[in-house]
Structures are given as structure tokens and as C-alpha cells.
């Protein structure tokens, strides 16, 4: 479904990785590993089309993502390092805006239900600036509950600043999504957290696949 062909990423003068190729099929989970600064986030940004690789290309169902553009973006969710949560908007408003921009039709009730699943029912109406770091992360992750039918999730460190219960819940979400036949690419430092799902690991330091 998703193919990376001979990718090379250069930031500044430094080559982060080169000749990186892999293919990801439906029902698979790809974990990108590596030390800080090894290019995990850059790889994820290349995969979703935010960053152009120095060489190589990324293909989605056979078509280059740079020509597919909106057609590709309609089918993916990318959750980056920053939560993309606006301080002045309430948690529910943030979620509705994020989903609408992504092209999903999400009503207020669905947004509230998704926030409820992440244990945010009490803070749904609060402006995001009073929420804690972990709660903001949950607001941005709540989008995944509403994106169940999208075939590719690209998640950059989804477990950061989450408490144990939320980590458990995220694991279930990820396992369910893979079982549904979708593909997931994620970075995480904690290998054990997604141990329940069969996964492929790419280590950007040792280049083991």
C-alpha cells in the first residue's frame, strides 16, 4: 500500500539516512526506531509529504504522493510532535476543527463521544490553555477514534506525556486499527508498548529492517 523507494534525507549538511526502501501493506504496523536526531520525525514527514526527500520517492497504492496530494491526504492521519491544539479553543472545538480540515464530517456529539473515550468528558468545554500537557495530547489523539475508516495512520511519538491508562487505551486503538486491515507507521522509544501487534521495525541507526 505504502512504498518508500530509495529515500535519502539531508538536513543542513548532514545526511540522516539514504537508500532507505520499504513497503507497508494493509494490516501491518511499522515502527521507526533510532536515537534522537537519527531522522525519525523527518522520515515520517517525508512519508506524509510535508518534506521532500533529497532522493527517492514515496508511493501510495502505486501513485507518487506528490502527484496524488489531496487524494492521499484524504486517506491519512498524521499526528506530529506538536499537538495542533489551539489554546483559545475548547477541546471539543479543537477536535471538530481538526476533523473538518481533514475532510471528515464530524458533529459535536461525535466529538464529545471521542473525548469521552479518552477520559476528557469533563474538560471538553474548557479552553485548551488550562489543560495539562497530557490532556492536550489526548485531545489531538482523540482524532484517531473518529478516523477509524482511514487506511493509514502516521503517528510521531503517540505515547509521550500519556499516563498508564491512556497508554493502554492507545495500544488497544492501534491493535484494533491494524486488525481492521489498516496500516500504521509510528515512532516510539518504548518497544514494549506495542508488543501485542505484529510489527516491522526500521532502525535508522543500524539500518536493520
Amino acid at each position, binding site marked *: 500500500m505504502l512504498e518508500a523507494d530509495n529515500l535519502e534525507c539531508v538536513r543542513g549538511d548532514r545526511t540522516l539516512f539514504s537508500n532507505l526502501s520499504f513497503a507497508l501493506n494493509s494490516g501491518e504496523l511499522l515502527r521507526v526506531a533510532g536515537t534522537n536526531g537519527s531522522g525519525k520525525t523527518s522520515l515520517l514527514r517525508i512519508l506524509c509529504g*510535508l518534506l521532500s526527500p533529497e532522493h527517492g520517492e514515496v508511493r501510495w497504492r502505486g501513485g507518487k504522493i506528490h502527484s496524488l496530494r489531496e487524494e492521499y491526504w484524504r486517506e491519512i492521519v498524521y499526528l506530529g510532535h*506538536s499537538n*495542533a*491544539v*489551539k489554546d483559545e*479553543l475548547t477541546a471539543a472545538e479543537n477536535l471538530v476543527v481538526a476533523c473538518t*480540515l481533514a475532510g471528515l464530517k464530524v458533529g459535536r456529539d461525535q466529538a464529545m463521544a471521542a473525548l469521552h473515550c479518552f477520559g476528557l468528558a469533563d474538560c471538553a468545554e474548557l479552553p485548551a490553555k488550562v489543560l495539562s500537557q497530557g490532556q492536550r495530547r489526548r485531545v489531538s489523539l482523540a482524532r484517531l477514534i473518529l478516523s477509524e475508516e482511514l487506511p493509514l495512520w502516521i503517528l510521531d511519538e503517540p505515547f509521550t506525556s500519556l499516563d498508564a491508562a491512556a497508554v493502554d487505551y492507545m495500544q488497544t486503538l492501534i491493535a484494533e486499527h491494524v486488525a481492521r486491515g489498516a496500516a500504521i507507521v509510528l515512532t516510539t522509544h518504548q518497544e514494549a508498548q506495542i508488543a501485542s501487534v505484529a510489527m516491522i521495525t526500521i532502525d535508522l541507526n543500524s539500518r536493520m529492517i
Partner: protein
Amino acid sequence: MLTALRCVIVRDLLLAMRRRADVLTALLFFVIVVSLFPLSLGPEPNLLRTIAPGVIWVAALLSSMLSLSRMFSEDHADGTLEQMLLSSSPLGVIVVGKVVAHWLVAGLPLVLISPILALQFDLHQSLLWVLSLSLLVGTPVLSLIGAIGAALTLGLRGGGILLSLLVLPLYVPVLIIGAGTIDVASAGLSAQGHFMILSAFLVVAAVFAPLAVAAALRISAE
């Protein structure tokens, strides 16, 4: 597509409403700058009448610049911009939404308050609506051109000053025609020609600026 457009406009207006201080600062800046001239030049009606169009237009220009640097920088900082770049709607449409919201917040109030400020310059009543109308057509052009500058200087250190240097020269044609509209009308001639040119600026900017902004945003995001 229209849902995304509406969503962006509503979101930005909501943000502006919850941060009223920013909006009021730009408006107060406009009021104060315009009022400084009659105070400093003294009550000489002929002089004031002559300088009124220029002063009000320059103040409108500067005031709409104040909020430009925030147009994309906050979205860039909190990651919302990335999500906009990955939206299922074309980026140009989202940019149009942001520009419309910027104009409603930073341009429209200037248009509405300008006739009252023009009274300080003893501008003839028949010229007040010419002034407002010229601002009504001209300020959206300012927002559109400014958006290009804001997108190009996104993420740069000292971007605010660079933004002014980049955008102000591009504002000059709009300023000349916009202020000229009132001059022509005050000389008793028809201002239709000037309005036509101003509208032509608006049409050209509305078509090309969103594409330029979208391209600049993609580059800045890398």
C-alpha cells in the same frame, strides 16, 4: 471544500473574538495615528483636507500590517499549519479562508471607522463615502498581498521587520490609486476610473495571491 473554507473562517474569527485585545490594538493604532496629524499640524482646513486621503490610507496600511505577522506564525508554532498542509481541501482554499478572516478582523473595522476619523480633516461629506468605498475595495488587497509576505517570512528570526520591507513596496500601487480616488473626487471629477483600477487589483490579487501563499507555506514548512 466549502466546509473547510467556512471552518477556517469561523475558527479564525472565534480565535480573534477570544483575543479581542489584539484586534483592538490594531484599530486603536489606526485611530491614534490618524488623529496625530490634525493635532500636530494645527487647524488649517485647506491643508488638512489635502492631506486627509494620504494620511488615512497610510495609517490603514500600517495598521493592517500590525496583525500580518501573526497570520500564520501561531498556526506554525502549535502545529496547526501542518494539519492545514495535509488537509483534504486544496491549500489555496484554506489560505482564502485565512485571508478573509484577517480582512474581517483587521480591514473591515478600518473601513467602518474611517468616515468618523475623516471628520477631523474637515473632509466634505460627499467624499466620506468615497473614502470608505476606496478602503472597502483596497483593504482586501492589502490582506492578500500581506499574506504572501507573511507566508514567505514564516519561521524567520526578525521576520516582522523583513515582512514590512517585503510588503510595503508592494502596497505602493494600492496606496497611490486608493488615496488618488479621493483626490480625484474632491477635484469634482469622476472617481470611476480609479475604482476600476482598484477593483482590478483586487481581482488579480484574489486569483494569484492564494496560490503564491500556498506555495510559500509549503516551502516554509519543510
